[in-house]
């Protein structure tokens, strides 16, 4: 079984592990059963706010418990929306759909044919302009919410305690 201590989880999050370390310590099955709590603890220490992280969504987004309910928050502290809403609706967006814009990223011939009305939508945090997601979709494609976590089922049924924003003991076993 893998058994990463908090410092190793920190290294994993920072992308500091070599391939050998990754292969020997991190990738093998079965996995350390408390990885979720260790990860959550490391992430919590990295942000400048105290509301409990409930679920990490990606590099810069978390579902966070607040006095006003659960929100999607960027690590810069910007609250994007309530947990039930699609956070992309709160982002700043840049749409690439012509050759000149594609060729800022790709070489000629190695990007979408502009005649195909297919676009790259870049979603930026409105607080700090970190790029937090990219969609590659046809024109007119609805903006999908990628993940809608069932937070209470996870904490109550899989972890055996209420979520941290609902009185759960954060030190309970994963």
């Amino acid at each position, binding site marked *: 079984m893998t058994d990463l201590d908090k410092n190793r989880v920190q290294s994993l999050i920072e992308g500091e592990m070599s391939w050998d370390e990754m292969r020997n310590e991190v990738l093998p099955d079965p996995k350390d059963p408390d990885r979720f709590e260790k990860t959550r603890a490391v992430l919590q220490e990295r942000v400048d706010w105290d509301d409990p992280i409930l679920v*990490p969504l990606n590099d810069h987004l978390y579902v966070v418990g607040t006095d006003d309910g659960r929100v999607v928050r960027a690590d810069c502290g910007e609250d994007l929306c309530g947990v039930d809403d699609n956070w992309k609706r709160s982002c700043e967006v840049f749409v690439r759909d012509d050759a000149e814009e594609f060729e800022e990223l790709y070489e000629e011939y190695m990007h979408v044919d502009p005649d195909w009305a297919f676009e790259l939508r870049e979603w930026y945090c409105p607080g700090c302009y970190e790029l937090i997601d990219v969609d590659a979709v046809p024109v007119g494609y609805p903006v999908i919410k990628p993940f809608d976590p069932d937070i209470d089922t996870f904490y109550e049924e899989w972890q055996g305690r209420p979520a941290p924003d609902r009185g759960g003991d954060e030190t309970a076993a994963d």
Partner: protein
Amino acid sequence: MSKPESELHDPETTTREREFDDVEPPIGWDGQTLQEMLDESEHLLEETGHYRGLDELEFKEQDPFQYEQMYSRLRGALVSARETALHVSASPIVREIGELCFQIYTPEGDSVAVSTGIIVHVHTGSLAIKYMIEEDYEHGRGIQPGDVFCNNDNDLGNVHTTDVHTFVPIFYEDELVAWADGVTHEIDIGGMTRGHDQIASTNRHEDGLYATCEKIGEDDQLYQDWRDRGQRGVRTPMYWDLDEKCRLAGCHMIREAIHEMIDEVGVDTFKQFLYEAVEEGRQIMESRVKERMFPGTYREAGFHPIQWEDKAWQPGAQQNMMNHLPVEMTIDGDGEMELDLEGATPPGPHPFNCAEGSMEGALWVYLTQSLLHDGKVNDGANYAVDTNYPEGSVVNPQDPDRSYHTPWATIFSTYLAVSKCLSNGFFSRGFREEVITGYGEPGDALQGGGKLKDSVADAIPDALGDYWPVGPFDFSCQGLGASACRDGLDYGYAMFNPEADLGDVEEWEQTQWGLLQLSRRVKPNTAGHGKYRGGSGWEGLHTVMGSEDVSMYAFSIPTVTWSSAGMSGGYPGGTSYSVRVHDTDLAERAAADEPYPLDDQPVGSLEDQIEGEEVIRDQDGMFFPEEFENHDLLRYQTSGGPGWGDPLERPPEKLKEDIEEDIFTPDIVEQVYGVVGDYDANDREFTIDEEATEQRRQEIREERAERTQSFDEFFDEERERVEESDWNDGIQYMYDGVFEQSEEWAEEFREFWDLDDDYSP
């Protein structure tokens, strides 16, 4: 439990000398017919939620050592059959690449264990066996000891036409105790064009040779008429014949191993073991979901463009099309996974239609690489996942008339979306190392064939004939997507087979006699951008020599659009394009010891390095069969994987390595990553200008603030385009098809864009 000696297992007797006594139906267990066994199995699963109603694994709990030993022995027999039998084959696809696998099924057709290899077939054989049961082969066509059956009909249980299954029923006494199934990937199956992943066929009748759960032999011998049909039905009869013998030999090895096992442990123990192994597979899947994933709903979508308006041969296929492959994955509180593709486009006049069995097979090949690395992979896991591949859609046409030659295009795009759904779950649980943003799609770089000129043909063995097929497995080596803690693997991944391997070029040159490989090189700027970049793709250059009647084509993706993007701010890799140069001066250059081209780098430079009467440079990497003459050049490309994270977070020293290793070019690095410096291409040394880099990165951040718009502005602009159907005919094909196929998806579309109830694209 008793351990009777099997009359069928006599090590002193070779297979061919055996005589088999017919058995009278019913041939199932305890006097049941196979149909009764299947009905009971389905009923018990429905009623209890457990395979065969087994809520406890009694044998495993009472004697775990013997249980595990039996599983290991069974799996060992399958792997051994594969590793031995592949040497019977002459096709490099089977012998060198290992594009074959063997599996064992219960009498009612549920897979228990699978060998290594193309494990996509863990479930496809199951469907074919169940078809034979439901069509009552037991009383009609007959299922007897020594019989041999064959299937490659995708609509009944297969992935694509060139995957051919051989089934052997395994009897003990008068009961059918199991089925053995061997699959090989043929280098040719007949059909309207050469190649093993055809692109020109538009319906079943153009796909090539089909065996529809057909009895092809008895008493361990193949029927003469079946062998004649194969010999006359494909372009490569020798490879066909030896591949078939390979499958049959492997199935017979498995039968021997099972008879030995039953002789040792007794038939009752063996039966109990089979059922418990399937139920354990189901339980492992559920527990692994709870260990790695987060309950909730995940949504992503894949897209596959088909730009055929000016390329397709058949009138009905001369249009631009896009397949829509939406994925909604739900994980409930019990750890049950549901996969729903509601909203997939209808099937079409192309070979990318994908039977339900193909989609299910692909699910297993992908889950074994992402969630079930060490589990018991069998149909138990299948029963732990609830799937909806909508009937009448491109992912489940339920129409045998369709062409199913190359469903991989549909599979690759779909499972990019599945990969992202799974990865969102892994990330949320802290398993960043298991995140995979996707992969470069393994479209075939090159397919086709030609004939050697008489003067050259004399130099090779007569048995091979003058025809040389082209089906290299260069597409086994695409870039893998990034994870959430490291870059993707460069040029070394194939979604369809976890043992990705392109083989030795020398092996292929002994098959593709008239096709010479001039070069293979890393292709810069194929990797998807990100804090962790995707793995890189590569490009190669071929020429033709000593041949005539040569035609070749490419099944390539992604081409004119992407299939999907990266994750968490990562971008997709570069798309593939094609260059062909006809009637060149290559021979004159070679004779004069002058340089010849090795790549198209910088992009657009190939034609400057060679004289040619005709240069075809196409942004679409996919092209239909085209004639080639000796010394013509053909450039192809593999794909890079998507990236993870904001590119501005990638450390400059990593980009220095990328430039020096030809992963990215300095101009792209400066534009995307904001890293500025001087590159000495001769010494492959990039020197970072730290001050300029800091300034450029700040500029990019400022540009982001300046050029972005609010969601509301985006929404208004995009909605206007929706109202005016402001897109090309390929996108129109997609929206028309989805609205026709799924009222549910159409409703959701209208709701999102706040459109009237009568809106249609």
